[in-house]
């Protein structure tokens, strides 16, 4: 059981973190105080062209130099510094959060169609699999993930999430069930522009992570949601599937439903299921995924976790509970329950 919420302003109007902090705290019954986190898009406009790498160091003196050297080998650190934190009575600062604004050197992977993204992905996988006291928790442009072990209000106050501004926010209130709670296991999970929050459990994790490993993605955070971020990156960024089709691969219709479709739809859905069999996610889940231009929510195909959507002007909200949406936006004009396995998508205009 976990609580999730996301909001996108299609007109890119910015919101600070005050309201999402309240909405997450509204769902404290869904958490256990062992993990909470936020993703915010649009928070680093002054470094919009750099990859913002958020890193958890075990300790800065010992572990940081190796990461510095590796980054300088692959590009240029434009700016760096500690992520400001503020002591909270019940939150132990186990890691030192640091951020780099990084520009990769395109010429070092000139064979790739997207050299910068591929260099950054390579660096994230390299640092996270080395287990040398450093963990990259977010790596997108003009966005960042802020997370820790604690209740949502504590984690928000620890980072002063209220002071960050962005047009798209995700939040997560964690109740770890299958692995111990730790800072790296808190949501959102991120790679490049993709961030994911999730309620449920991916029982096909073993199959999924074996599949994704053959494409160079390594799961290192001891929890299932990480694999979702990598699956989406593979399917949408690398294989070029539209987001809706990616959801068809992850939460496909049943075979009897595919059999009842018209010929064209049937062929398409059969091809997706056959091609991406090992990407199919089993088990109960409600997920919200975001990238810099869109936010998308979907559940498993038999709807074993709750998901509610709401709209107010330019804003689309997706959450585990309607009350959390109303806590964030009391004037919400319309709320509805998306159908199992069918994505709800909000995109920025233009």
């Amino acid at each position, binding site marked *: 059981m976990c609580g999730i919420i996301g909001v996108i302003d299609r007109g890119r109007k910015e919101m600070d973190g005050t309201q999402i902090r309240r909405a997450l705290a*509204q769902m404290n*019954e869904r958490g256990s105080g062992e993990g909470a986190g936020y993703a915010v898009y649009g928070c680093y406009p002054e470094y919009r062209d750099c990859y913002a790498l958020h890193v958890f160091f075990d300790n800065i003196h010992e572990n940081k130099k190796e990461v510095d050297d590796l980054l300088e080998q692959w590009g240029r650190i434009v700016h760096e510094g500690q992520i400001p934190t503020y002591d909270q009575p019940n939150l132990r600062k186990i890691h030192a959060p640091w951020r780099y604004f990084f520009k990769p050197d395109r010429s070092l992977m000139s064979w790739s169609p997207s050299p910068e993204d591929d260099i950054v992905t390579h660096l994230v996988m390299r640092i996270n699999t080395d287990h040398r006291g450093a963990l990259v928790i977010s790596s997108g442009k003009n966005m960042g993930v802020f997370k820790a072990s604690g209740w949502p209000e504590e984690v928000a106050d620890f980072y002063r999430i209220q002071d960050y501004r962005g047009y798209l926010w995700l939040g997560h209130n964690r109740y770890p069930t299958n692995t111990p709670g730790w800072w790296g296991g808190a949501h959102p999970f991120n790679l490049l522009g993709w961030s994911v929050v999730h309620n449920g459990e991916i029982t096909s994790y073993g199959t999924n992570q074996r599949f994704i490993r053959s494409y160079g993605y390594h799961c290192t955070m001891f929890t299932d949601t990480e694999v979702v971020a990598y699956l989406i990156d593979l399917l949408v960024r690398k294989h070029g599937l539209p987001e809706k089709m990616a959801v068809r691969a992850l939460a496909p219709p*049943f075979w*009897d*439903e595919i059999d*009842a479709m018209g010929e064209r739809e049937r062929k398409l859905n059969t091809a997706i299921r056959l091609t991406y069999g090992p990407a199919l996610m089993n088990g109960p889940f409600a997920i919200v995924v975001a990238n810099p231009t869109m936010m998308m929510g979907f559940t498993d195909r*038999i*709807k074993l976790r*709750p998901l*509610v959507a709401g709209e107010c002007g330019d804003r689309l909200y997706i959450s585990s*509970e*309607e*009350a*959390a949406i*109303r*806590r964030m936006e009391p004037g919400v004009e319309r*709320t509805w*329950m998306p*159908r*199992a396995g069918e994505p709800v998508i909000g995109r920025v205009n233009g």
Partner: protein
Amino acid sequence: MGGTIRIDAAEMDYTALNRQIRSAAASGATEVVLDHVLGQRFIADGLRGTVRLIINGVAGGDLGMFMSGPTCIVHGNAEHAPGNTMNGGVIVIHGSAGDAVAHSMRGGKVLVRDDIGYRGGIHMKEYYDKTPVLMVGGNARAYLGEYMAGGLIVVFGLGGGAAVTERGIGSGIHGGEIYIRGPVEDRLLGVGARKLPVGDAERKRIAPFVQEFASHFDMDAKELLAGDFTRIGPASSRPFASKYTWE
């Protein structure tokens, strides 16, 4: 004794709220009005007696769980599982409700004006004179009446289109009946469920419940009863006997 007590639930935790509700009921109030409710869970759980709760706002999960006697009237939507394992009383929702409405319900009535989510009436059961009733004005999603062991579900589909368009109706049903206004495609029936004939006896059986439903929502009971109903029940009383035993 008697009278109405108002409670402002704004920013109040559910534990404190339920304590106040219990103390109001114990003091002999006949009506308790809760204003600014926003997602507080477990409202009226385990509450006994005949008190009437008016809930203004969004009722949180498990409204009226184990409740035995009181009436809850919600002016707004309800989150998951209102009427969970409820024993007696009435829940009236002037809005929609989430998944697993009337989950494992044992007695009383849950009346929802608009739509319900997935697994409505999952594992409802009955015992002698205890027959739980779930009635839905709008539409219901997949796995309606899953593992149903007793009781009555009625879905009117007033939201437009067919009342139920999703799979697994009565999956694993082994008792009770589901009435859906209008036709239901055969492919939507779950394993162990089958369509049964609807005659005068059946219409007569559901008529008093339909009248009560209509009176709560200012609807015309005759109109609600006028359409054709599809009745769905168990194919046998032990549809999975051979799966779990070697007799």
